[in-house]
């Protein structure tokens, strides 16, 4: 019991509040994004639907009044922050100016230079983020595809399993992270096996098939002296598991809208199952797969809460720094300029990757 309390204490007191706030901000942003989309749709339907081909005229003042609450919120929480971020990022010495109440802001790219030349931290952050994306996105997409196809092919209990697979999506990711940490955690001194009180659930399971225990969270064990990979493995498992429900949902929806006659036609032509999957199912699902991969990459680049959830505030002593982690870590120390610059760099990277994704998917998908 004491240990649980200590654990909870560490996570809550040291990291939780900050994390919670950060998480809250992210989530409101997501909510607003949805808002925005709906607003755009609404504006279009209200003002522009009948005006296709004609000159756009917004002369209905009523419409604007209806939109006002959303517009004000968007201006305060989305538009202003974006401009402010850009402004802060391109203001030299923003941080020191701010702290002494200075007013003569000077345009420049010093913040970017500071960030890029900040050495190991930034490099680790970029490398980690890239590596996470490259590993988790294909892995989770493939798994989700297999699970979705399997789910689609069973009749009894389909709704039940659908719900089960969707549960992680509505569960707080910090909570999931803590559970994962508990699953992998080794309680006691790992170097002195006789002192270990609990090897943790995963190690016990692995022990049953004869695998030596690994000190996952501290990074000691099978992978030799490299302390990085066990932690990375835990993180990958967590992220993949956490990413599955959304992807399964999208892919399953896609699968259920595929015309059954394609499968009947394939059946009559005695098509082997694997060929049906690769030649019919996957191409017909390609728009959904593209969507899932693109959003997966965007989500992957913003990975942060998972790491906090499992490894706590220190992000495994900085070993598992990510881009967003880098940004948030700069904030409590009032390095707003650097944080803004890093945010813009992250934006540029996501933008570029998404462009590449879109380009590839345009060539490969069938709509």
């Amino acid at each position: 019991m004491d240990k649980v309390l200590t654990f909870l204490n560490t996570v809550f007191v040291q990291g939780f509040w900050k994390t919670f706030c950060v998480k809250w901000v992210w989530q409101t942003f997501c909510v607003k994004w949805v808002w925005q989309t709906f607003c755009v749709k609404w504006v279009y339907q209200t003002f522009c639907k009948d005006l296709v081909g004609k000159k756009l005229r917004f002369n209905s003042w009523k419409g604007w009044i209806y939109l006002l609450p959303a517009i004000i919120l968007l201006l305060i929480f989305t538009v202003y922050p974006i401009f402010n971020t850009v402004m802060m990022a391109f203001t030299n010495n923003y941080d020191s100016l701010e702290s002494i109440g200075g007013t003569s802001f000077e345009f420049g790219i010093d913040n970017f230079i500071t960030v890029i030349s900040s050495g190991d931290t930034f490099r680790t952050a970029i490398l980690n983020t890239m590596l996470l994306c490259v590993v988790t996105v294909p892995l989770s997409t493939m798994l989700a595809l297999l699970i979705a196809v399997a789910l689609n092919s069973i009749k009894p209990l389909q709704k039940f399993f659908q719900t089960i697979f969707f549960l992680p999506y509505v569960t707080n990711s910090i909570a999931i992270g803590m559970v994962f940490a508990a699953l992998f955690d080794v309680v006691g001194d790992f170097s002195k096996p006789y002192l270990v009180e609990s090897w943790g659930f995963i190690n016990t399971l692995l022990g049953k098939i004869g695998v030596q225990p690994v000190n996952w969270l501290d990074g000691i064990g099978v992978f030799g002296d490299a302390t990085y990979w066990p932690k990375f493995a835990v993180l990958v498992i967590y992220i993949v598991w956490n990413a599955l429900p959304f992807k399964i949902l999208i892919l399953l929806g896609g699968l259920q809208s595929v015309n059954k006659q394609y499968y009947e036609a394939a059946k009559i032509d005695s098509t082997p199952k694997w060929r049906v999957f690769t030649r019919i199912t996957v191409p017909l699902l390609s728009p959904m797969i593209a969507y899932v991969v693109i959003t997966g990459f965007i989500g992957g680049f913003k990975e942060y809460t998972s790491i906090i959830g499992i490894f706590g505030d220190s992000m495994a002593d900085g070993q598992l720094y990510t881009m967003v982690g880098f940004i948030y870590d700069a904030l409590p120390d009032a390095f707003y300029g650097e944080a803004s610059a890093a945010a813009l760099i992250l934006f540029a990277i996501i933008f570029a990757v998404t462009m590449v994704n879109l380009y590839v998917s345009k060539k490969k998908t069938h709509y």
Partner: protein
Amino acid sequence: MKVELRNLTKVFPSRDKKSGKDVTAVNNFTFEIPDGKLVGLLGPSGCGKSTTLYMISGLQQPTSGKIFFGEEDVTELAPENRGIGLVFQNYALYPHMTVQQNILFPLQNLRGKDKMTKEAMLERAYEAAKLVQIDELMDRKPSELSGGQQQRVAIARALVKMPRVLLLDEPLSNLDARLRLQTREEIRRIQKETGITTVFVTHDQEEAMSISDVIVVMKLGVVQQTGKPQEIYDNPTNLFVAKFLGTPPINVFKGRVENERLYIGENAVLDVKGVKDGNVTAAIRPEGFVLDENGPLVCELSNVEIMGRDVSIVSRHSESLNPTIRSIIDADNRIDATAEGVRFTLKPHKVFLFDAESEERLYFEV
């Protein structure tokens, strides 16, 4: 390959387990489809014609009864082992593949001793494409084709693996009227050229009559009549078949038979030898009317439609079960469209009598 259906029955269990009744889609269907013929399954929607087709294909399992291809019992055989080609109502062409890939697809599935080289497959695909005249369109995607072209691709895909039986499910229902005429001739030509036993399903009697060697008329899962199109048209076994075949539809009257004479209203209109006295339903084909100033059938003239080749007279009669009577007369006849009434005599072989209760045919000597 002849196809034989023996006592084929398909019962769909009711969805509502408590109150609902099971639905018998096909009831005791026995029929032999002769080798190399084109057979049309005809009936209104819900009559079980598509279910029959899908049972022949193997996509649906009969509740009871047997299906034979030649001497081979295929009832338990999976669809992929039956050697059939099936053209779906909406064609089910793979939208992400080109025409060529679509046609090649069944060939690429062949395994074992049937496995073909790439060149051989291409050759076969081009042969099939030539047969349906789409060899110019091999690189297009299905979405870039017209309905008629898509339909041909679907036929080519079904034909390319040389099936023993070709099945077509409402093949013309997605085409516009002009294309439908053209395509049904095309289907006839392809069937004749390949000599493959072909079964097709339609609700359009004109379509079925025009291209089938044999027609099977179905109603509520029960076969009403089978035979050559002209035979069925000239000799329907019951009122349903008489009403279902023919455009414009047959004219139906309430009538009665007294002393071997047919009365419609007050007048005796026809001698019917061998029919017992009693109430009957009389059905008269539109071409069964002859204009006659002293004719016994007196109708109230509504209007006259000039078709060029012939004239269609629309009239009314108190005993008619249709709102109007439509009779087709040779255009050489002069008719006064402003007249109050019109009188006809009847061609005996175009008049069918049915029992008023059972709607079964009552035969009389002509």
